[in-house]
């Protein structure tokens, strides 16, 4: 109730107008909380409870089944590769878009967002038309691990580019010039001046790409093939367990996948904060 009062710097008002200043008051807060709970929290809580239906032992049994372990391992392995490739390719693309001038740059810049706008199943079909049977370049990748990597690189392309790009635009060019005039080479300048400034946002972009990659389904479902213990990723495993009516298995692997995503995002955020303190310190 007192929010408007606090924000007005303690100016006293008639009580009727207290929350009239743009805020939504306790009623709005209640509505928002109820909405978020019903749409997001309640379903996820149902997954958590169902995964523990058979106690911790049942949970462990579900996620230690050989095909579940294989699916989780492939998912994490492929996602790590995708995150690392994105760190390099994304920084390179952002660099070229900020520091280089060439005709058609605006079109290329708009093209970066395409994977966000394109439905994931279309991404799968698109890659299939190039790397599938009848491949025009004679490179058939269907149902192989490289196919998973290509599909995930396609859908995660914008994350790193779009987090690094604004920082590069605002980067301090004078420090670079000063370093150059003192005789530093390009690599030294990049490593000691540009990279530290980029690192915080680069890590967050990589984290988002990784989180997206481990949960991805639509883009890998056609080109990945979903062969158990070979190219079946965790999301495909979950969908299959729901289909064959093994809800506890599906719930346990879902929770594991969520925990991996949160752990990675948390560690990357800690690293980013440490870097930020280091930079400012």
């Amino acid at each position: 109730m007192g929010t408007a009062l606090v924000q007005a710097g303690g100016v006293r008002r008639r009580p009727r107008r207290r929350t009239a200043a743009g805020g939504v008051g306790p009623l709005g807060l209640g509505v928002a909380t109820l909405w978020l709970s019903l749409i997001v929290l309640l379903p996820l809580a149902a997954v958590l409870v169902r995964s523990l239906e058979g106690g911790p032992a049942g949970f462990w049994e579900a996620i230690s089944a050989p095909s579940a372990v294989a699916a989780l391992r492939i998912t994490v392995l492929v996602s790590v590769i995708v995150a690392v490739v994105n760190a390099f390719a994304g920084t390179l693309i952002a660099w070229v878009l900020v520091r280089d001038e060439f005709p058609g740059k605006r079109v290329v810049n708009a093209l970066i967002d395409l994977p966000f706008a394109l439905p994931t199943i279309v991404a799968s079909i698109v890659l299939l038309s190039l790397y599938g049977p009848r491949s025009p370049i004679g490179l058939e990748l269907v149902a192989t691990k490289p196919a998973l990597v290509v599909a995930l690189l396609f859908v995660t392309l914008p994350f790193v580019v779009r987090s690094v790009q604004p920082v590069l635009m605002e980067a301090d060019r004078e420090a670079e010039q000063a370093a150059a005039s003192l005789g530093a080479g390009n690599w030294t300048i990049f490593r000691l001046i540009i990279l530290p400034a980029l690192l915080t946002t680069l890590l967050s972009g990589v984290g988002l790409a990784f989180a997206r990659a481990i949960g991805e389904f639509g883009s890998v479902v056609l080109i990945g093939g979903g062969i158990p213990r070979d190219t079946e990723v965790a999301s495909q495993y979950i969908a299959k367990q729901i289909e064959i009516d093994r809800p506890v298995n599906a719930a346990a692997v879902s929770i594991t996948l969520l925990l991996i995503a949160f752990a990675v995002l948390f560690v990357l955020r800690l690293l980013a904060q440490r870097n930020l303190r280091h930079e400012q310190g």
Partner: protein
Amino acid sequence: MRQTAAARLSLRTLALGYLVCLLVVPLMMIFFRTFEDGFAAFWDQVATPASIAAIYLSLVIVAIVVPLNVVFGLVTALALARGRFPGRGVVQAIVDLPFAVSPVIVGASLILLWGAGGWLGGVAEAGFQVIFSLPGMVLATIFVTLPFVVREVEPVLHEIGDEQEQAAATLGASRLQTFFRITLPSIRWGLAYGVVLTVARALGEFGALIVVAGGVPGESQTLTLLVHSRFIDDQNTFGAYAAATVLMGMALVTLLLMTVLNRKREAA
């Protein structure tokens, strides 16, 4: 940092080459495959009853999801931007949660909640079918698109501050008047951007829907599910390409709107 012409050229080649191989060539390829037999063949695949029903259902879902997301998204953004309450960080985290949750897990969670044996499974027994029908598909789509409006509007609210709102309130404007005359006009481009993202994601959602929807042609099959079913069940590769090209056309329109709105937003 002074780059030699050779260094700059090679970095440019490398970056553009990566984009061409990953994005441009595959996109060209699907256009070529779709239209290699002429426009009429493409149109035959798009104008089938199943395909028209799928497009219609996709649009119905968008028409339900967007208004709900706008209303509740605005309330949430206002509560987060203007309120100081305990647990604000938790609410922020919940808003971001759908970004970190796999669409398949979204679908699975709805089955576990609303399906037989779930906490709210009684709703279906009472005759209101959620899973394998429209309400389930709408719930899944709302889940995955929930953050967009909040995340696009909240920073704008912070930026504009609440001085004008305070002034309007002092001059006797009601809460609704303040919102429609002061707040809404200043957040309109951010809101529009959030709506575009919501529409694009709603049209393109697949993973959550394939788990929740029955996928019955003409009944519970959206455009994305049609692409999948034509490819897997019907072995109709050309039909799948054609439907995917329709979705791709929608994505290109979205991209265009995003670019235009971004410019408006920066100019504002």
